[in-house]
């Protein structure tokens, strides 16, 4: 059993979002980078749990990014995983990233590819599905539970107003969300061993660029809160009805 876990670097969840170069680039100055939480807490930790249950499981991590993403990959390796692959390229769009992952997966002999449900920066929720299509594998998104049963997998996915439980053949791509696993903190042994785990750097495969970001904008600031006294709830009901027109 060989699992490829897709790791993306995102700004920390408390980052104040700002843009530079005439609103065409995300301002990375002072940004604390983290592993995308969906990739870390759910995709990677679930893969590690599968390896703990069956030590013959091999976990590879993959990321697409420049050398400055290596700190994040080492952090992921400190949680677990046997080796990592960095595709040495700045990502253009989801399709470019998916093309790189598919190129690695195509000859890698993987049974499973795990991704997070989405990244918390671009929220595209696109890479997993694109990788699955490029490989012509089945794809289950927004999974909250994943169990291996021999050569098939049982997966629960949560969606609008309910949940579905599937049985799917391998190889398979799964995007993971809350429920799959519990967040972990790397231990000292993991941090020490991560330094010596293999990190292979490869050059990108050719891929079409299908989209281009032209500019960013911040939402207009809120007008400011209108406070209502605790004994004036009738006034709040009136405001919601007459002013906000939401009830």
């Amino acid at each position, binding site marked *: 059993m060989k699992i490829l876990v897709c790791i993306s670097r995102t700004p920390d*969840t408390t980052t104040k979002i700002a843009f530079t170069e005439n609103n065409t680039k995300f301002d990375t100055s002072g940004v604390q980078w983290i592993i995308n939480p969906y990739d870390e807490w759910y995709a990677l930790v679930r893969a590690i749990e599968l390896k703990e249950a069956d030590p013959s499981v091999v976990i590879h991590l993959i990321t697409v990014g420049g050398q400055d993403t290596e700190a994040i990959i080492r952090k992921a390796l400190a949680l677990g995983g046997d080796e990592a692959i960095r595709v040495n390229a700045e990502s253009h769009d989801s399709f470019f990233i998916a093309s790189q992952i598919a190129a690695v997966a195509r000859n890698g002999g993987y049974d499973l590819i795990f991704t997070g449900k989405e990244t918390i920066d671009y929220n*595209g929720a696109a890479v997993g599905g694109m990788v699955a299509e490029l490989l012509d594998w089945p794809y289950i998104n927004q999974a909250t539970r994943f169990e291996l049963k021999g050569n098939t997998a049982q997966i629960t996915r949560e969606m609008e107003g309910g949940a579905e439980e599937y049985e799917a053949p391998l190889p398979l791509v799964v995007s993971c969300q809350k429920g799959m696993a519990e967040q972990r903190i790397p231990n000292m042994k993991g941090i020490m061993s991560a330094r010596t785990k293999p990190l292979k750097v490869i050059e990108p495969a050719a891929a079409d660029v299908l*989209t281009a970001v032209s500019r960013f904008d911040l939402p207009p600031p809120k007008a400011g809160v209108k406070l209502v006294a605790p004994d004036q709830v009738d006034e709040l009901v009136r405001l919601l009805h007459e002013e906000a027109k939401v009830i």
Partner: protein
Amino acid sequence: MSVLAFVDTAEGKIKKGSLEALSYASQLAGVLNTRSEALVIGETQEDLTQLGKYGIAKVYHVQNAPSVFDSQLYTKIAADAVSAAGAKVLVFPGTSNGKALAPRLSAKLKAGMVSGVVQLPELNNGFAVKRSVFSGKAFSDVAILTDIKLIVLNPNAWPVSSGEGSAEVIAVQTAHASSALKLLNTSRTSGKVPLTEAEIVVSAGRGMKGPENWGIVEELADVLNAALACSRPVADAHWRPHNEHVGQTGIAIAPNLYIAIGISGAIQHLAGVNRSKTIVVINKDPEAPFFKAADYGIVGDAFEVVPKLTAALKKFKGLS
């Protein structure tokens, strides 16, 4: 050429997000001076001629497709439909199935896709779409560079608009009729409004002190016909189920009205709810950061304010 909307269904019933996609597709078709069409895959009990009310001229109904949603199979079916319809713009609802199907189809057709879309495209200089990024903290204009273009809407970002009309329904048979997936079980949170589709959401946090105190929150939600939500600490402490957790790592929602009770409003929580049209915050701490993101606020004890608000709403709705 046409604009083709994918109609996502659950057990044969059309989801609210699909109506948003149909409305968006028809508006866009108007701007592009073409027609809007719809694709329905699998059995449905709905009268598909009624999609004409949302401006749809023609519905392709793939009747013999398996009703189990299989993105691999549905991609093949959808690609056939795109070519049969000569569709140039494909519109998907921001539902779970929409988010599984659109990227696959994008990769299959080598056609650019933008998700989280909140507006009609800007057509003056190419085809640029405004989308939500950084978990609702910013917007980005993205140009789609390919001939065929895929748009995935942000849930609740586009209003459903309906009028008069009847659509022509074309029955389609597909050769892609067997799925590698087996659907073992389906469970619905029955009788309740799905959180991501709810117009009104009532949410509570650690300020409620314990799960045994949720009664007053539920009563407020009942009178408003609202969905229930909670903050991350509440879900992590197992006071409430994980599927009620809204925030950056939970579910992102965009209701018309979001009422937050006893939630301080950490930036991670705001990231999941900041697309709500109106935010009401009830918190006894006047320094709670949530008040900065709110439209209306009450500084007060939830255990006193919430039952009063429920009573006032009952009176307003003529329920008492």
